[in-house]
């Protein structure tokens, strides 16, 4: 793998993170590469989701949190005071554990973000809806029911709608927080295929509890334990020949 400086989209330098007085992340330094899928794995409470939420400043919403160190997105520290979290979140989309479409029509779910950020022309919006839904491989299933409530879709369709909704903002990065943990195996397979497709144009960082999923979809894998990054390497290496004992114990099911 070629790792050149301009290939790196996120650069974390000695990041510490606190919820009040409890430290959730300790001394995390890692790079994320452009147009790659990076998986973050580890047992519950290891800090992987916290780290994901640091990358688009979603942790800002929680009272009493504190970040130390630097998180550079395309070279600039997103936690600098002059960086607007709203602007950052437009560049870095997020998909959540449970599908969370708005109780609006499919069309309005996708146009919600773009409308509030300036796209008002109806034709532009229609084009955007079609593009986003096609990217999320949902277009064929919903093209005739765009005005129906998103709540009538199945769980797997809802999650792809949420991905389409994030894509409509034309982000550079897509953060996925256990995106298939609430879905059945078929929907999961569809989302995994979709991730494969999306990585051509997006940088994807995915948190998952399903280790086979991490092995299938990602090129790089980071293993977290007790708020620390234990091992970060090529996914094939992590899953066939990890270098750290804790990683091996975790992925072979010898934990706890």
């Amino acid at each position, binding site marked *: 793998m070629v790792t050149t400086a301009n290939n790196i989209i996120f650069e974390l330098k000695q990041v510490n993170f606190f919820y009040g007085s409890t430290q959730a992340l300790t001394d995390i330094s890692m790079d994320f590469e452009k147009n790659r899928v990076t998986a973050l794995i580890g047992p519950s409470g290891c800090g992987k989701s916290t780290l994901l939420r640091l990358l688009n400043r979603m942790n800002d919403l929680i009272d009493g949190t504190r970040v130390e160190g630097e998180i550079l997105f395309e070279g600039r520290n997103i936690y600098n005071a002059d960086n607007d979290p*709203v602007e950052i979140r*437009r560049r870095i989309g*997020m998909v*959540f554990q449970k599908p969370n479409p708005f109780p609006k029509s499919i069309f309005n779910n996708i146009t*919600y*973000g773009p409308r*509030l950020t300036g796209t008002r022309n109806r034709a532009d919006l229609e084009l955007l809806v079609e593009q986003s839904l096609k990217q999320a491989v949902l277009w064929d299933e919903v093209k005739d029911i765009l005005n129906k*409530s998103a709540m009538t879709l199945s769980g797997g369709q809802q999650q792809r709608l949420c991905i389409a909704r994030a894509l409509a903002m034309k982000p550079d990065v897509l953060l996925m927080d256990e995106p298939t943990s609430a879905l059945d195996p078929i929907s999961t397979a569809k989302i995994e295929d979709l991730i494969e497709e999306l990585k051509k144009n997006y940088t994807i960082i995915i948190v998952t509890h399903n280790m086979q999923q991490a092995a299938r979809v990602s090129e790089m894998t980071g293993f977290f334990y007790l708020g620390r990054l234990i091992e970060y390497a090529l996914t094939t290496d992590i899953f066939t020949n990890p270098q750290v004992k804790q990683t091996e114990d975790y992925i072979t099911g010898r934990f706890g």
Partner: protein
Amino acid sequence: MNLTSDNSITWRYAKQQVFFNIVRLAALLISAALGGLLLFIIASGIQAISWDFITLPPRDSMTKGGIMPAIVGTFYLTLGAIAIALPLGVASAIYLSEYARQGTIVRIIRIGVNCLAGVPSVVFGLFGLGFFVVYLKFGSSILSGALTLGILILPTIIGASEEALKAVPQTFREASLALGVSKWGTILRIVLPNALPGILTGSILGIGRAAGETAPIMFTAAAFFTAKLPESIFDEVMALPYHVYVLATAGTHIEETRSIQYGTVLVLVALVLGIDLIAIAIRSAMRKRKKW
């Protein structure tokens, strides 16, 4: 262990029956009280109800005629109260549940709001008299009465709105914020629309309360008698609950006006129940629509 120990089974069954019957009785008692009250009011008041009763002003020292000015007065007062309390209450609720850091100050504010809800209504009346009528020189008027009633129902509206806002799933907020929509935009486009059914229900229940209160308007808005309808918000009005109070205690013809008293009560109760029914209808309609 003997599973067929008849003794213990019978005993347990008996205990269970006794307990069930106690709670059943309690429920029955409540329903009976409500039913009895309604039946009594309907039976006593129904013969007074007529088209004239609802559309004409009182005459002959209020021993005859209708109660139209009181209906109109109550209508204006409650409308005014809601116009004042709803924006204020919803705004406070948004501040409390969406913006304020959950800490000591918010806790103190909440306690304050709850205390406000527990204050006897006559105290609101006196406060209204002292502050709006006398100090702000609004006089005894729709404005003073509506302000007083507004403050009275404010805790109800704040409480209901806060609950409704909290009931909007956090995931909606996160989804919107993650799309790069500002906090205010998220509240306006996502949180408020989804909380609206709850807010409306709570507010309408507040209206019901405002319509039925006597003490707060006694000193601030209600007129003993006025045949004309109000022309501005600085006019005094008659109001249904105060009209009943006047007829039943202060008049010289208490016995002759019994049927008018009950008729007025019936109209008031019908009004309040009607408002509550609207609230229930709105709530169930909105509930059917939401699917999270």
